[in-house]
């Protein structure tokens, strides 16, 4: 599945099916600092993601 990442903006291919929390672990991303959006919908850590899903992992940290 295609996973859109930010900072810097890029797309990576990740093999599914996979739970959200496992995707974040595989990408070495901290849960508390990210949201996972499937299509237009926010999804929880236990949501299963499948091949063909459009996924965005959005960082939430801001400010200087």
């Amino acid at each position, binding site marked *: 599945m295609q996973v859109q990442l930010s900072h810097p903006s890029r797309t990576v291919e990740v093999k599914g099916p996979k739970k959200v929390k496992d995707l974040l672990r595989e990408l070495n991303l901290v849960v508390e600092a990210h949201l996972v959006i499937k299509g237009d919908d926010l999804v929880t850590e236990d949501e299963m993601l499948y091949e063909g899903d459009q996924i965005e992992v959005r960082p*939430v940290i801001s400010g*200087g």
Partner: protein
Amino acid sequence: MNCIKCKIKAVIDLPRHNAAFCKGCFNGFVHDQVARAIKSEWMFGKDAKILVAVSGGKDSLALWDILLKLGYKADALYVNLGIGAYSEQSHAKVTKFTETVAAAHGAALHIHTVEQEAGAGIKELAQLIHRPTCSTCGTIKRYQFNRVAIEQHYDVMATGHNLDDEAARLLGNVLHWQEEYLDKQGPSLPASVAGFAKKVKPLFRLSERELAAYAVLNRIDYIVEECPMAKGSKTIQYKEVLNRLETESPGTKQTFYWGFLDKQSKKQPTATTMAEKDRAVLHPCTSCSQPTTAEVCSYCKMMARAKTAAPH
């Protein structure tokens, strides 16, 4: 995972509250947290005229959205810092929110453009006066928000600082033992002297992740990109450390910051209160009349230096 309130499919889990919510119940949770913050810290009453400091980011736009939905009279001020494409995008996001959401509540947007007054964007201005960009930005924003709040007769100025912002700031102050800053780390700062607006942080009970989720769920179109000037900043480093701790041990950030607030509230009152201290050292700037500890305030000094240093 299902919503703990209505049992339908959840869209967000909140480990620090041992909870998960659907969109409707999550919105209720967020609004309730803000209402509790306003009430517990005596921030403002139902009829107050509020000025929200907006940047185009998730926190400030979410704050404006929440206050309007809670029925408050809240206008906003956007400071265009002149950081190339980043400022253009953030300005566009604020304008879009004003037109599509805020205007329907009768709310207005004020805009201050740094380039119009200083003759240069924030980065060039900082170079001209040999000061770090983030510190120049902070001076300008604090000054302009206070100026508009006072000149336009707002009762209170609200900023989008969240739990993560406050916990990171507290960590920085504690790591460097900057005890003199701790008194001003509360979410509600009084208008201690004439010329200073009251400042409040109604989002201090909500985390950055919760506010990003609120923005996504309510289709608030905010700027996701980081400010290019903030890359690698200490605040971001502290937030990353705190988020690693939070993920392993949910509730760490709130225990840290709310625990600090609790201890501060139980402290024996000292001989002089913060307001008394302010009144003892602050007086009107001879150039603009905003309160300052010096003869001329740091903003006026900065603008004077910029005018002298600018190429003719």
